[in-house]
């Protein structure tokens, strides 16, 4: 486990950053400061978690990276190009799934491609592939209200995968599903990472979840959000995903983060 306290703006270990956040601040109308000069790099092919107490601006930061919110100052670069809005290289997975209730599973999964003007046959083929990849084959013609919460988020995930973006932005994707489904999701996410060569930015408030799935964990402090630590949990992710939760480094990292966060809760 490596811990960088107050990391420099450009870390020496910077390999190949897909997303670079440079001194981003966000002040909402009404004067509430959500982020204060945040700088983070997101290395290519890695899963980086944004972890922090509620109100630390982690979702705000994710939406700024997505181009859904403008930053008050600072810049976000994706593959070296400044972000001014949503782009084809980034896909978003929503906390509340954001499925259109009037569209079928395949209609929802193909929606991103449809907005890009991809023809019906082609987009439905692509959608079918990713519906199968998230394990929902046979549910193509179902409507969201006919699916469980966990299945709905799989639809949201398939929709994000279908547009073949390099960067997957996930906003607490498993927080609205039950504990058992969440664990299954976390394991599936690890498997998905081996199949799909993508960069993941993963927002969560669960320490265990962050340590379980992440290559790097960015700890944000609250009010206003700042980067307080970057933690690289050095856990071997072999074939046995169940072994991770028993690994000493996993347990130590969870404990360290908890002790670090506890002081913000008083």
């Amino acid at each position, binding site marked *: 486990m490596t811990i960088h306290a107050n990391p420099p703006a450009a870390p020496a270990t910077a390999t190949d950053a897909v997303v670079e956040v440079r001194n981003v601040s966000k002040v909402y109308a009404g004067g509430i400061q959500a982020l204060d000069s945040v700088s983070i790099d997101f290395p290519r092919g890695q899963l980086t978690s944004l972890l922090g107490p509620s109100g630390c601006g982690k979702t705000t930061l994710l*939406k700024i990276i*997505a*181009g*859904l919110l403008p930053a008050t100052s600072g810049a976000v670069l994706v593959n070296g190009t400044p972000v001014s*809005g*949503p*782009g*084809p290289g*980034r*896909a*978003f997975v*929503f*906390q*509340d799934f*954001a499925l*259109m*209730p*009037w*569209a079928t599973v395949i209609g929802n999964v193909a*929606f*991103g491609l449809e*907005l*890009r003007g991809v023809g019906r046959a082609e987009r439905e083929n692509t959608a079918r592939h990713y519906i199968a990849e998230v394990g929902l084959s046979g549910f193509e013609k179902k*409507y*969201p*209200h*006919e699916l469980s919460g966990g299945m709905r988020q799989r639809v949201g995930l398939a*929709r994000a995968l279908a*547009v073949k973006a390099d960067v997957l932005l996930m906003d607490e994707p498993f927080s609205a599903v039950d504990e058992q489904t969440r664990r299954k999701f976390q394991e599936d996410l690890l498997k998905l990472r081996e199949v799909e060569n993508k960069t993941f930015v993963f927002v969560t408030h669960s320490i265990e979840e962050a340590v379980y799935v992440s290559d790097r964990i960015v700890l944000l402090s609250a009010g206003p959000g700042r980067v307080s630590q970057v933690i690289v949990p050095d856990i071997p992710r072999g074939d046995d995903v169940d072994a991770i939760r028993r690994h000493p480094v996993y347990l130590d990292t969870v404990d360290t983060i908890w002790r670090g966060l506890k002081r913000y809760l008083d």
Partner: protein
Amino acid sequence: MASLQRDTETGSGAAGLGLSRFVPFGAPAPRTALLDRQPGALATFFSHPLTLRVLSVAAFCLLWEAVARIPISFAFPTFGETMVALWAMITDFSLFHAFGITLQPLVIGLLISALLGVALGVAMGLVGWVQWLATPVFIVAQAAPLAALIPLIIFAYGIGLTAKTLVVCIMAMPVIVLNSYVAVGHAPVSLVEMGRSFLGSRRQVITRIILPAASPVIFAGLRLGSAAAFVGAILAELLITPVGVGDLITYSRSVADYPSMYAAILSIIVVSVLFIEFLELIEVTVFRPEKRARR
């Protein structure tokens, strides 16, 4: 003494044998058996929504017939008499003639109200300055008793089709505009963000996300507006010039032909209900297919 003794004995004996099922603290076994019973074909038939609707209408007709036979008033015909009068109006085509006249201001007014009203309401929900400009007008219009404006409309536009169409519009428009405005404003934020993040243009986000999301409430407004439009059309015929269905009602009343009067009133109610059902069918077919799947 002896007879009294015997009475108490038979009483308790009856309670012990036959009546024990009906006392609330009796054995629980029969109740569980009732709860566990599967609904039979008959129960399924009687709990079907369509059966219930038909039963509800039939019960209303029977009650009408029964109440009118008491009789409560000379001016209140029975259901049977009304049906006979309705059949006479259908066979001599006077009903169709009347609807031909009534439907003119109704259809024109409703079309204008629906197209203009939804467009304006959606614009109010999407564009700030339209919202500030138009909201107060329609909130006042919805609260005001608009029928009071009819003399003013006659004064300005005379007694022709224009005045009647205008009455239909002022009755139907406010609720259509306000429902559309509220519906658009309440489109789920995360769905709109989803559309933007997957590179939807402003136009795509409006047509593919905001409008379908708003359609249930917009259509609720259209249904309320349609009902109000029927009120407006009949009101115009009763207050401005007696033609069409309004004339059938007024004339039948003046010659004390109450069955015909009730038949005319019933016919306009039936047409109004059928039209509103038709609107719901359009909504479910065009905008919200998942509601059909839910049925």
